[in-house]
């Protein structure tokens, strides 16, 4: 079983029933068991009745173990696994609204955005919205870089992830 990354974050991927109340059951279990969710992202999968949840949690190998077992125990969780950071890909999407009152600032922001392979997705007289995708470090870096322009708002999705290769460790090992 893989462990946390250098920040001590454990990456968990779960396939869950896609129906009302499931997120509550899962997040409630985390609260009840005193696990601390750092980020959580949910969306439908290739099957319309199943959703994938990517959760990051702070903790050690014991925490990882318990989180997976406690999740596996929930009836609505079909599969759950810890993903190895190196053997999986992780992405996060962020929308960042920046102050940009002058032409110079605008073009500077656009330069940075293109270096980060982001996109400008909205322009108003005094501001821009930038979309950046990547691992969380990249998004942190972009925000640090552009903070001096004045950040108006940030929305981040939290990490979503998939294991590499044809057979995912999830299918391989089954439930937990």
């Amino acid at each position: 079983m893989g462990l946390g990354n250098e920040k001590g974050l454990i990456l968990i991927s779960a396939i869950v029933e896609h129906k009302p109340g499931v997120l509550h059951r899962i997040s409630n279990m985390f609260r009840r068991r005193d696990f601390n969710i750092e980020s959580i992202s949910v969306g439908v999968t290739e099957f319309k009745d199943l959703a994938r949840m990517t959760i990051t949690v702070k903790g050690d190998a014991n925490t990882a173990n318990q989180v997976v077992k406690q999740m596996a125990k929930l009836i609505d969780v079909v599969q759950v696994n810890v993903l190895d950071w190196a053997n999986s890909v992780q992405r996060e999407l962020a929308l960042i609204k920046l102050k940009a009152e002058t032409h110079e600032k605008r073009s500077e922001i656009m330069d940075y955005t293109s270096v980060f392979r982001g996109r400008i997705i909205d322009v108003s007289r005094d501001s821009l919205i930038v979309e950046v995708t990547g691992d969380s470090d990249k998004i942190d870096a972009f925000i640090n870089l552009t903070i001096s322009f004045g950040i108006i708002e940030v929305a981040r999705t939290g990490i979503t992830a998939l294991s590499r290769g044809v057979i995912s460790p999830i299918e391989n090992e089954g439930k937990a």
Partner: protein
Amino acid sequence: MSVLNKSSGGKALLEALKKEGASIIFGIPGGAILPIYDELYDFEIRHVLCQHEQSAAHMADGFARASGKPGVCFATSGPGATNLVTGIANAYMDSSPIIAVTGQVPKPMIGKDAFQEVDIIGITTPITKYNFQPRSASEIPETVKKAFFIATTGRKGPVLIDIPKDVQTEECELNFPDKIIVRGYNPYKKPCEKQINAAVELLASAEKPMILAGGGAAYPEASSYLLKISELLLAPVATSLMGKGAFPEDHPLSLGLLGMHGTLTANKLISEADVLLSVGTRFSDRTTGKVNEFCKEAKIIHIDIDEAEISKNKRVDLAIVADASEALKVIYEGLLNRLNKKGETPWFKRIKEFKEVWEGWIFEEESNKELKPIPILKILRKTLPVDAILVTEVGQNQMWSALYFKVFTPRTFITSGGLGTMGFGLPASIGAKAAKPDVPVVDVAGDGSFMMTENAISVSVAEKFPVIVVIINNRVLGMVAQWQRLFYERRYSAVKLDRVDFVKLAEAYGANGVKVQDLNEFSKALQNSLKLDVTSVIDVPISPEENVLPMVPPGSSLEKIMGVEKWDWVMKKG
């Protein structure tokens, strides 16, 4: 798939319950569950009208524990549903299969804070194994089947079904499925061969093997293999509170209860074991004492059907995720191939010596007529047949029962282990009596606990489930008083409780009430109530100063046993 004619949701529920084998329902009606009760009016299934929904849930729980079949309880929405909560949480902590059915406001009113609306799905999510809210009548049969499947397989537990009122009245064609799939749920876990072999190896080469049996081992099948393994290895068996009944306590290898109020033998010897086979236990703090110091010298093998219990509280050396009876069976067979029955080992001799000291202590007070906890429990054991069911309340009465009332088979000792719910005993004993009408059922109570659900006497009388309540009456919240005496310098804050004449109270409910003055009177009163076919309440006054001893102070290692100073000599040997 069998098809029934048109029917209402309420009728569908009752039909489905019957198909799952439910024979009795404990409950209280109300507005949001009226359509179901209306169907019940001419439906052939027994309904027991309770006085409080908490008791209804405990009765279902007691029924389940005594019979091995799930217990069913009904409540209306809102306060009816929330009154069930303690009973559901209690069943959850002790892995007891109950099916709780609640009425809910009609679908269009859900979320509108309608009269008696409560989010019982949200409230019970952390205390049920699963909960359902069918949105149409046609879902009900499948939901019920799933509920029973989930409640009774794997690690057992409560399931709640919350049915909106309009779903109860809705008409539809009903299909009763023969099979159901619950995709994310696979309760049948086969023991892994490699781990079984490793366990056999460890046990066979142990010099001081010991067994710890929890609630997961207190089932007939599992307990029979436990006995065989223990005898083959000459391994003594201690139990958690929930494990009581997993091993015959009159057996030379029985050490009795382990933990905060465990026996001298169990608590002392466990630190000497070199291999511990623990079965169906979650290593609760009440069982292990200070967990880091628990069973330090031993390699620990842990069998549990719930994988999440592995290394949750205690790191173990070898884990086997499987049904206890299956795992024990293959371990036993492995051991049989691996070794011959042992002759008397030094370990066994030490156990024997320890047990003599301990039993000597228990029998010491034999001649005195004074009402004291140990002789009271001894008289109970002597008087009751071996298959009688002893239920307890919570507190000193519970620990005295666990320590001094010997139990021989699973399902004959029923207690609230995980939640420690005062008020559990009386309704649970009524549920147990409903399950086993031919067997005497005795609730050993404390006065405080008894008063929490004492109105269930009316149910016991009216519905003819004649249990015997023995109130070990110290006129205080005894266990709290004991802690105040031992750990709070006798500052008795809010524990005095001498308010009720229990004889009159029993009589007011139509029960037989009697107060006794000494052991002889108690013995006679007990024998007499066994002959009656009406509920009995026996008030047994004892000193408010009695302690449950031995005791391990909270947070201490099991070796720090209080109240055994006079046995220091035996503890130092070995």
